[in-house]
């Protein structure tokens, strides 16, 4: 029936070469991420998971991971938002250099980042010496975990927000400025709502990176249970003596990460429709 054909087409998009290529790419990507994770899950047993979830070492690592990640994201947002504003809008000498500097942790191997932080914050290092009179000692503490996470996760937030800011039409902010709104009020009531998707995206990316951070953390913060041992470092240690336990830990970390990503996504959808 030729009359039914157009209606049927709107239900199922016609398969063009472009659509086929897109679908193929999606399938490859999904499989690439999902298959190893599924293998991971099938390698563990409910018993092993239960054992891991009652293990105080695991619970400590989970707590340290979640708390340090939350603190890191807060620090990254507080410092990263003004920084992103300067990068996206500022016109000052050295802007390009600052921009490259911000992105450097993205290409640096995390172990190198950890090493650099360790040297800088060790009692003999310049920052360590500066902090000594205040009685602050960073290496091998919770602060070191946060430091490492901020270092590697910060760029994700800064770049996301800077990209969002450069997409904002300045004339909208200017109009707000002519309506008795000072710069801070304009930022809060106009700029921030307009870049909200970029901010959410930046928080998700940097939070995920902080939660999974390993190399820099173990170098500068060590691996002390209940203080600096995070899920990734706990998995690494477990892997050396108890591979099955390590797999159970990995599954827990994957599930927690996935839940957090989905949760933020849901929050974003609720905001967009609400």
């Amino acid at each position: 029936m030729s009359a039914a054909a157009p209606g049927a087409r709107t239900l199922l998009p016609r398969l063009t070469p472009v659509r086929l290529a897109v679908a193929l790419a999606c399938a490859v990507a999904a499989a690439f991420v999902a298959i190893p994770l599924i293998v991971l899950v099938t390698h563990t047993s409910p018993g092993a998971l239960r054992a891991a979830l009652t293990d105080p070492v695991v619970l400590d690592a989970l707590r340290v991971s979640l708390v340090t990640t939350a603190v890191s994201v807060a620090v990254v947002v507080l410092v990263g938002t003004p920084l992103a504003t300067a990068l996206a809008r500022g016109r000052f000498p050295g802007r390009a250099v600052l921009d490259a500097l911000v992105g450097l942790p993205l290409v640096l191997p995390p172990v190198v980042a950890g090493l650099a932080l360790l040297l800088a914050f060790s009692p003999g290092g310049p920052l360590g010496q500066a902090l000594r009179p205040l009685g602050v000692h960073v290496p091998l503490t919770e602060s070191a975990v946060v430091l490492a996470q901020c270092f590697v996760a910060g760029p994700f937030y800064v770049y996301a927000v800077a990209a969002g800011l450069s997409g904002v039409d300045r004339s909208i902010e200017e109009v707000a400025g002519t309506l008795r709104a000072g710069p801070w009020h304009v930022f809060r009531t106009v700029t921030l709502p307009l870049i909200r998707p970029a901010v959410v995206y930046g928080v998700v990316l940097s939070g995920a990176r902080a939660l999974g951070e390993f190399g820099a953390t173990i170098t500068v913060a060590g691996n002390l249970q209940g203080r600096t041992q995070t899920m990734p470092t706990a998995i690494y240690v477990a892997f050396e003596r108890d591979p099955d336990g390590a797999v159970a830990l990995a599954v827990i970390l994957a599930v927690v990460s996935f839940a957090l990503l989905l949760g933020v996504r849901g929050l974003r959808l609720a905001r967009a429709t609400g």
Partner: protein
Amino acid sequence: MGLAASLAAHAGTLQLDAALSAEPGRPVALIGANAAGKTTLLRCLAGLHTPDRGRIDVDGEVWFDSERRIDRPAHRRAVGVVPQQGVLFPHLDVEQNVAYGLRAARLPRAEQHRRTGDALERYGLVPLAGRRTEALSGGERQRVALARATVLDPTLLLLDEPLSALDAASRATVRGSLRDLLRERSACTVLVTHDARDALELAAHAVVLEDGHVVQEGAPAELAQRPRSAPVAALMGQNWLPGTASDRDGEVWTVRTGALELRAVADPQEPPSLGRPAYVLVDPRDVTLHREHPEGSAQNVAQARVAGVVDVGGPLRVTLDSDPALVVEITARAAAQLGIATGAPVWASFKATAARVFA
């Protein structure tokens, strides 16, 4: 009382150096071609662009003074701005857009509510109050932008091409309501436009900018009748035809211009001299179009084809392919009766007394 500004500023390659004053209730139109400096001047008044030097004084308050190093930021100036295309807040609905300034000024809740309601009512926005702005038509957006800019009763209202985003049909209506609104307001108003009709209908005074400088100012009708340069004449929508005064018969002069020989009466203040360059000024409304060679008293008759028709809201502007090109204004009804369309053959005529010749 009123606005007194005198400033120099630069933006890109533009060097602006202009003085401008406005009295409450007497809107001033800033006219000029693109990049003449109109918008830059407006931005300086609003506090969105910092002049290099000069002074801006509004109702006795100094908003800018380079010598005394005074530069009030935009949010400390009692200004209302209607930008080109409206520029509404996309994340707020119509009511929130209108109320934005009241909220930013931290007025008491009850007063915010009352003034927002008044503004929505005055601009016919009550049925749109809860709408998202992206769903609005051009005319509706313009009304929201006006309501938002005037809700705080600014002492200086600045409008940048307030009608340019509208289609021809709504432009005439919005122009009408804007005129009533500006006449009612006791504040100073400066509006930027490149359309002579906006200036003629909305403004009590017009200032023509060219390359950042004021080249002529006065009542809009006066500018249309006595433009002092071809650009001003063109901006005011007049026919300004340069030629040579070739003959004289009593008070009627003959001027050769392009392929035409026009009869015109001499301007009493700047009469032409024989054999010298002269300009003929003809109001487009005084030119009549015909389908066939007209019989009558008009001494100027030219055959041509229609080169283009522009609808700016109100009468149509018809351009002819004569040499020099003539612009004619006729009603849409007359255009329909004559079958006016691009390429259509027509005869144009105007009386010698409708044409003035200047030296």
